Structures are given as C-alpha cells and as structure tokens.
C-alpha cells in the first residue's frame, strides 16, 4: 500500500512537471504615474493559480497551455482581465487604472481572497493613504504610529513611535528603507518617526511567520519602499503644519526611462521660539529642529534592466549658544559657549534589477548606512587689550554610532505555479562606535594645548547571510512556504553560525476561509544597551561578542482568515514566542559609569510572550478602517534581577485595542476617528522606605526642617514591574476638506488629538499632596501621575499639483 502511494505521488509530480507550460512575465504599474505596484495579484481566474508582483512590480507566472482568464487586481485599482490562449511565452507589462476615477462598484478587489490563498500570516500591508488621512498628534502623519494601532503591536510611552511587537523590545524590529536597515527610526526623542509618508509607496509589517529572506531581528520586519517617481509628468505635493512643513517633487527626466523623486521635511519650532528666547536674554540662542530628506532616481536601460539610486538623510539637533562681553581695566573680555546634541541616519542604496530570463529575476544591491549620536560643548574666551589679544578655547565632543556597508544579491525564480522560489546572499560589514570622546584645549602657550581622544574602541563585525525559500502548492488545499536563513556573524575572532528554519502553511477550508500555521526561528546579533524605559538617542547599539551571545527567538503561530464579500477581512491569530539571551544592564550599571568592560555589566535572561489577535479590516468603499484587538501576556526572567523570579515586561498589556474609522462623506469631505485603549504599563513602585546609613551618621546629610530632623530615605521594591499604571485610552478626530484648484488640489486637515481630554499616565512619582513637606509629617504623602498631552487641536494645509 505504501508503495502504491509513493508511486502515485511520483507520477502526479512527474506529470505535473512535464505538462506543456508557458510563462507570462512583466511589470505592473500605475497608469498615471508609472509607479510599479508591489504585491499586485496576478492570476488565472479560471484556476485561481497565480502569484504576486515583487518589490519592483515584476511578476512571472507559468501556466499550462490553453485558454486562461489573465487577471490582475490591486487595492485601489480597477481589476484588469484579458482572455489569453496560452500557446507561447509572453511578456505583458500592464498599466492599472486608479479606482478614484472609477465607479464604486469596480473598486472591489480580490486582495482579501489572495490573502486567503497566501501562506504568509501575521503580516499587514499598511494602507498609506489611510495613514496620511488619519488624525495624528499635531497633524503629523506617521507610519509607525499607524502600525501601533494594529493588533500584536504595542506602543511604548505616550506619544512615542517605538514598536513593541508580540512581546519584543523596540530594538527587535528590522526597519528596512528600500532594503537598508535604519537603526534609530525616530525624531524628536521618539515622538515622530523618520519616515515621511509622502515619499513612501508601500509598508509591510511582518510580526510572525517570517519568510526566509528576512533576518537579523527577533520580533518584526517593517519593510518600507519609497516611491520611484512619476515617469509620466512632473508632480508635487506638500503640506504646511503647526510644527513642520514638507514638500515632495517627482517627475520624468527622460522619455519615461528615467524618473526622480525628492522629498523633504523640516520642523520650525526653533524658528518660532527664537524671538521669545531673545526677549528673555538677548545673548542666548537655543532651539531644536529635525529634518529629513528622501531622494530617489531610477533609470530603465531596457525592459530587462533597471537601476535605482536612493538615499535618505535625517538629523535631529538641539543646541544652545551664549555670548557675553564686558570691559574691565581697559581690557575687553569676550566669551562664547555653545552646546549641542544631535543624532541622525544616512542610508543609501544602489540597486540593479535584471531579468535573467522570464522565470528568473535578480536584484543586486550595494548599501551604506550610518547612525551617529553626538554631544558637544565648546567654550571660547578672548581678552583684547590695546596691544595684545589672547585667546583660549576648550571643546569636548562625545559621539557614538554604527556604520554598515553591505552588498547583496537576491533572486526570484518561478518555475511553475506550484513553486515560487527566492534565494540570495548578503554580506554586511558593521563598524560599531560605542562611545568616543574628543577633548581639546587651545591656549596661548603651546605647552597648555591638549588634543586627545579617548573612550571605547571601535568594534568591527562581519555578517554573512544567505537564504532559500520556496512557496509550494500541494494540491488545491495546502500550500507551504518552507525556507532556511543562514547567518554567520564574526566578531572579535568569534564566529556565530545559525541555521534558522522558517515554515508557514495555509490550508483552504472554503473559498473564503483558510487556516494558517507557522514556525520560525530568528536570530539577532545586535543588542541595544539602554538604561532608560523610553527610547533615547543615547541608547547604544553593540554587537554580540564572545561573552554576549546573539539573541534567539522561536515563534509558533496559528490563525485563520475569513473573507466577507470580498470587502472585509477577518483575521484571528494566536502566537507563542520565546526569546533567549536577552540582555539588561545589571541593576544600576550603565555603559559609561564603570571601569570594567561593558560586557561585565550585563545580565543575561529570557523572555516569553503569548496571546491572541483579532483584526477586522475593510480597505474598500466609502467606509474604511479596521478594528484590532490583542490579548497577550509578556514576561522576562533574569537570574540576577528580582531574585531570579519572572516579572512582567514593562509593556506587557493584557488588552490592547485600536479602532480606526474613515468615512468619505463626499468628494470634498472625508472624516476619520481613532480610538485606542491599552492596559496600563507595568512599573516598579516602592512599598516601603527606610533611613539611609549616610544620612544618620553624616551630619551634613540630614537637615533640620521646621523643627524636625529630616533624614534621607531609601525605598524598597518588592517586585519588578509589579504595579500597573492606570489604563490608557484616547480618541482622535479629524476631518479633511478637499478642493480642486486649476493647478491641482488643496486639502485642509483639522484634527483633535485626545478629543475627550483624557489624562493618560506618562509617569508616576511619590510626592506630597500640596507639593511641600511641612517637616512635621502632617502633609499627606501621595502618588502622583504626570500626563503629557491634553486635548490638542491641529490644522494642516496639504496641496498637490
């Protein structure tokens, strides 16, 4: 009997492989802009065998000879269909028409149906246009804050754009901007992300069931692709807001073969506050700003060969400058002091797409990225006498950062509709700069001069990665994506090799419903050292070393997706994730404070999380949006922290809800509302206090207050993260009013952040009821909550031409 099955299987496989087949391949693009469409569904509607376009809009579909109904669908575009009698290989470059210009009924797409078909689970394509229209803090649209509203993703502290995915930390997300990792993805101390929505074509969030092509982080991949630039005509869009303005320009350079895109954004808090600061002190200048710039140019050599060059540059800078001068004893004294704090990323990518043959697509990329953080302080003093001028200068700079140079080549191979193979190899050379100090003194005499550099030495590491994955269709019901990701990390003469299996599968129950399951292993060779409970630019990226092992996560997930009338997708998933070799500083340790190597200041531990997620999403029609709900548990355990007992992760949230609604009232007006709810963050609160030894026995360490001796108290904590802050919830409302102009279109966006003025907790501290201590113990000691954002209205003018 067993032999019979084996023989049947073999024959089926053999026959399947030797049916006469032909390949249709080509690019799918937007008819009006020429932008390539990523993830468009390409299939034969008669057999529902199909594929999706890759990140460059390319597809390759091999089908048996005969008549097919060649179909292309993509959310927001009219479905394309063509009867084809397949008797030879074909190249079809298709242009899809945006649905805005079409009747409502044509907008329905088969994307949900294709999601039912896909093996990929735990993945969300973030709707960019919805994200841009949503009400946001100060009217600044933000892709990462949109992602925070999805199930399985938790936000950190109020207003910040950090992502905590399925129990992971903010350092466990791989942010890829056109394939280049971005290390610090936030501006303004975490309040805004570095990604400018106007320049973005697509965003995909993957929080589990990772395909083998991704690696290097434990908890999520946020794959962001920039627009290529309109290759039909010159276009522009921009906006003017309360704290920033932005402008994006794009257009063709030459005969639809070359196009460009450039997009910039800058805040002007510094410009607005400068007159006020001058009023306070004319000698003082202080401010803060950030800017970012995206640029991309692409050139099509021919139908087989395209070249892309993209770059991102963003910086944050806070500064103060102070000048003074006075005359004394006929000598004029001048002094100036300036201090600054800055951080920023640069990423560049040069990419070459080449179609080797109709079934094999290649993408070769060379990238460079840099993250730098610096603090500087400089002081100059001049003494100007009648016949003599003397100058002395002092300067100090501390900087840290990470530089990456990488090269990689990826292949997409589509031998037949039952296989979609991807494989590739990459190499990244990391330079970690974990803190360098430059100290200079320049005096009048040569002997007084100091010019020295000290601090931690650079650490160099090489990361070689390769992968292979195949999306295999087995019969009409079962499809499996199976792959392996290999990583070799070399640092300080130590080599870490890991072979990470990835498997995800779907089983079709009905035409509108499928079950999915996945198992993945992810390794992360980089660690983020931080003492803070919020992400700050001072946090340091360091590599795994001979003493600190790479982090490893195993994730199991099961789920189901249900399609309601091709309009609403209902996704239900459950997951269990373990994370090993997590690091934390020893209690009270910090990177800078010890004479010992930082590696000796680290505690190793583990974490685990589990939960369920529900997403109900509607992307088409007048009424769009989603409801996301997460029920999860998230723990950490370190042998030497909290007596080795498990404790809740600080962003362990039992319940997390995000509801986003957008309604198009008319062609001129659309409205949006967002409501979020989250169980309060876990925090460590003291239960007891007691007197300090030094306060008792050092006469200068206590003092007399209102007739009572006041001693310094120490606090005792029973459990780490044993308390919960009050729950977080907030409603944001927005309305967009569009108006056609002869030159284009304007949109006024009005928003209300925290519409019902909820006082959400930012942090808690112990104080006294009326903010003072009377020394007699009469005033009541209480726990106080500090909130950050009350109701904040915003207005923004957007324009397009």
């Amino acid at each position, binding site marked *: 009997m067993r032999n019979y099955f084996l023989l049947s299987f073999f024959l089926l496989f053999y026959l399947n492989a030797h049916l006469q087949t032909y390949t249709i391949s080509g690019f799918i693009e937007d008819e009006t802009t020429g932008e390539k469409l990523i993830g468009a569904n390409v299939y034969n509607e008669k057999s529902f065998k199909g594929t999706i376009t890759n990140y460059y809009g390319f597809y390759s579909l091999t089908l048996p000879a005969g008549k097919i109904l060649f179909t292309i669908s993509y959310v927001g575009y009219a479905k394309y269909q063509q009867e084809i009698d397949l008797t030879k290989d074909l190249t079809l470059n298709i242009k899809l028409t945006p649905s805005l210009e079409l009747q409502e009924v044509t907008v329905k797409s088969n994307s949900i149906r294709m999601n039912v078909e896909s093996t990929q689970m735990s993945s969300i394509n973030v709707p960019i246009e919805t994200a841009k229209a949503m009400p946001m803090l100060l009217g600044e649209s933000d892709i990462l804050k949109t992602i925070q509203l999805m199930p399985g993703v938790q936000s950190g502290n109020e207003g910040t754009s950090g992502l905590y995915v399925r129990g992971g930390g903010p350092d466990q997300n791989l942010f890829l901007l056109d394939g280049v990792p971005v290390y610090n993805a936030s501006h303004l101390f975490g309040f805004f992300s570095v990604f400018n929505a106007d320049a973005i074509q697509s965003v995909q969030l993957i929080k589990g069931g990772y395909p083998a092509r991704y690696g290097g982080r434990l908890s999520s991949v946020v794959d962001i692709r920039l627009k290529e630039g309109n290759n039909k005509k010159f276009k522009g869009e921009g906006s003017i807001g309360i704290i920033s303005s932005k402008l994006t320009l794009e257009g063709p350079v030459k005969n639809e073969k070359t196009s460009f895109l450039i997009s910039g954004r800058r805040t002007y808090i510094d410009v607005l506050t400068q007159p006020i600061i001058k009023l306070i002190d004319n000698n003082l200048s202080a401010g803060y700003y950030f800017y970012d710039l995206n640029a991309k140019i692409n050139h099509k050599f021919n139908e087989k060969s395209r070249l892309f060059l993209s770059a991102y540059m963003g910086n944050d800078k*806070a500064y103060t400058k102070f000048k003074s001068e006075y005359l004394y004893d006929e000598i004029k004294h001048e002094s100036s002091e300036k201090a600054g704090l800055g951080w920023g990323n640069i990423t560049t990518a040069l990419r070459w797409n080449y179609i080797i043959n109709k079934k094999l697509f290649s993408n070769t990329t060379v990238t460079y990225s840099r993250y730098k953080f610096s603090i500087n302080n400089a002081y100059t003093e001049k003494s100007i006498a009648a016949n003599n001028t003397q100058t002395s200068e002092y300067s100090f700079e501390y900087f840290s950062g990470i530089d990456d140079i990488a090269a990689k080549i990826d292949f997409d191979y589509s031998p037949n509709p039952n296989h979609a193979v991807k494989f590739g190899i990459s190499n990244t050379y990391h330079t970690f700069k974990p803190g360098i100090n430059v100290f200079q003194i320049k005096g009048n005499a040569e002997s007084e001069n100091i010019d020295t550099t000290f601090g931690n030495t650079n650490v160099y590491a090489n990361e070689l990665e390769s992968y292979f994955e195949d999306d295999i269709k087995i019969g009409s019901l079962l499809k499996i994506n199976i792959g392996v990701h290999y990583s070799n990390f070399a640092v300080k003469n130590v080599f870490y090799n890991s072979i990470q299996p990835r498997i995800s599968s779907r089983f079709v129950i009905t035409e509108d419903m499928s079950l999915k399951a996945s198992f993945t292993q992810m390794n992360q060779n980089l660690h983020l050292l931080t003492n803070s409970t919020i992400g700050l630019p001072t946090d340091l990226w360091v590599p795994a070393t001979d003493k600190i092992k790479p982090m490893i996560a195993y994730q199991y997930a099961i789920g189901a997706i249900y399609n309601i009338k091709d309009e609403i997708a209902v996704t239900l998933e459950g997951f269990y994730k373990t994370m090993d070799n997590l690091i934390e500083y020893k209690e*009270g340790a910090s990177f800078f404070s010890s004479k010992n190597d930082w590696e000796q200041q680290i505690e190793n531990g583990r974490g685990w999380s589990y939960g369920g997620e529900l997403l109900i999403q509607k992307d088409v029609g007048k009424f769009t949006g989603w409801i996301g709900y997460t029920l999860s548990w998230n723990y950490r355990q370190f042998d030497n922290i909290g007596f080795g007992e498990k404790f809740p992760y600080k962003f362990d949230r039992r319940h997390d809800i995000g509801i986003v609604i957008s309604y198009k009232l008319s062609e001129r007006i659309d409205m949006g509302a967002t409501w979020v709810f989250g169980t309060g963050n876990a925090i460590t609160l003291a239960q007891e206090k007691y007197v300090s030894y*030094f306060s008792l026995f050092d006469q200068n360490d206590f003092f007399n207050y209102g007739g009572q*001796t006041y001693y310094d108290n120490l606090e005792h904590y029973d459990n780490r993260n044993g308390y919960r802050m009050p729950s977080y919830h907030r409603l944001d409302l927005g309305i967009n009013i569009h108006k056609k102009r002869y030159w284009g279109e304007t949109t006024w966006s009005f928003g209300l952040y925290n519409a019902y003025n909820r006082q959400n907790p930012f942090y808690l501290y112990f104080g006294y009821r009326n903010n003072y201590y009377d020394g007699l113990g009469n005033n009541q000691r*209480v726990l106080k909550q500090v909130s950050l954002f009350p109701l904040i209205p915003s207005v923004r003018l957007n324009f397009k031409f």
Partner: protein
Amino acid sequence: MQNKVLNKFNFIILTMALLQFGTGCEKVLDIDIPDNDRKIVVNGLLNTDSLITVNISKSLNILDSKNIKFLDDAEVKLYRNNVFIEYLTNAGNGNFKSSITKPVNGEKYKIEVSEGNIQTAFSETVIPSSLIGEITIDTTTNYVSENQFYSHESLECTVSFDDPPNEDNYYWFYLTGLYENFIWDSENFNDSVVYSRTNLYFESNDPIIDSWISSGKNGFVFSDELFKGKTIKFIINLDKGMFYGVDTNILHFNVNIITKDFYLYAITHDKHLDAMNNPFTEPVQVYTNIENGYGIFASYTTKRDSIMLIDYNNYYK
C-alpha cells in the same frame, strides 16, 4: 563623569520634549499599595577605633508622611565569634551603644535585633585586617585658569599604597582636615588655639572610582579588581582656596579597608538615589545584609597618613 553628563542630557531631552508640548499636567492617584508588615532597619559600621554603635529604626509605608521611626525600645544583642557578649544600651534617637566593646581585626560580630511583633533581624560582619604597608602621598600645585589674568592654586595629590595579595579587597577613601587656628585673645593678650576637624571636599576623575559616597566630602569606594596584589595609585585634587587664611592645616588621607557588604551598599546607595530622581530609569534596590530587615551592618579598618599646610595665604596669582 560621562555618565553624569549623559544623565544630564537625558533630562534636558525630556525637559525639552515636555516643554515643546508644554502642556503636561499632574494629578494625585489613588493606588492600592499593600501595607506589608514593617521591618527592622539596622545601620551600623564598626571600626577598631570606636566602641560599637548601631542605629535601629523601622521601615515605613511608602505613603507614610513621617520621615523616620526610631525603635528606642528594641532589644539589641551583640555576639562575638558566635558568643553572646552584651545587650547594647539605648542612647536615644535609635542609637544603641556598647560601653565596653571595641571591635578587633579578624573577629566576627553578630547583631540580633527584636522589637515587639516585628520579625527579629540578624546580621554579622567580620572586621577586615588593617592595611600593612605605608600610604605614600605626592603633592604638586597646579594653577587653574579662572580667566586670562587670574588663576588659582589646586593641590594635586597622588595617593599610593600596596594592595594586600591573595584576597579581594574593597576600599573607602576620604579626606579629613584638622584646622589649627590661632585666635588673639584681646582680654588676656595672648593667642588661643582652636582646632576644628571636618571631612573635606575634593575632586577626582580617576578611573579607579567605582562610586562616590553621597557627595565628594564623603569620599569614594573602589575595589582592587584591576590591581590584585599590586600598588594602587590614584589622584585627587583640592582647591587650595579652602585653606586660605587658615594658620595650620593637617590633611588626613584615610584609606579604609571595608567589607564587601559595605562596598555593595555604598555603590547601590549612590545608584539608587540617581535612579530615584529619574522616572525613566529602572529603580535600583539598595544592597542589604540584614536578614529579615533593611540597612547595613558592616565594618572597616582605617589607615591614615597626613600632610601639613602652614600659613597658606597665596591663593590667587
């Protein structure tokens, strides 16, 4: 120093962030904090120069408006090498003293404190050996620019001594001054001598420092981790302005060998206070070696060397 700079910057960052949005508000929160049983707090640091004294108090609920509750009715038993010696006598404000016992190097002292219904607290310490070798102090005077035309004098002292081999040693260094001032007694037409002794502030950026104690005046602690059995050397700086106009100054350089318990208490104490003032860092628990209680019961031995400054009147150049 870098840590302090960065902590400062973190605060600047957060302050700026708050100011940018400028609308933060505050409210009192009612939260259920379990009122566990209170514990005995023992604070005692024994040394071979003094009779044993410890302070006994009680922990308080974190929301208690009182600052301290001394346990003057406690029963405090003292043991030497596990043999009961005496009950310590209350001297008010929670202080319990021995009238006879001065600690001896190498001996183990145990304390047992009980009071009413509170769980009995225990702790013990072994008095460390004294530093055998001599302390060497080399001094040099530097001129520190205040501006282009004036500078003041700073006394740079290089302190060195030999670390006892084959053992883990922990140190506490601080500086004390004995001032000798001659005051003219106009009624009796003669000089009278006034002595005053105090801990002195000093500065140091020496990488040997693991943690300052409370402030520069109380010195710093360090371990011999990087100098096992070798000569330990560090540099401190004193502003000579503090001696201006004082007739005679005797500076005592106190190198104390401390128990590991006290070393851990000192470094966690400092970090605890830093973290307590920053709501965005994880709290740091202060080390304690008191079983069933809080505080510290530890010991040290002192080795001291001195230098003398006479008629220092030459501050500005």
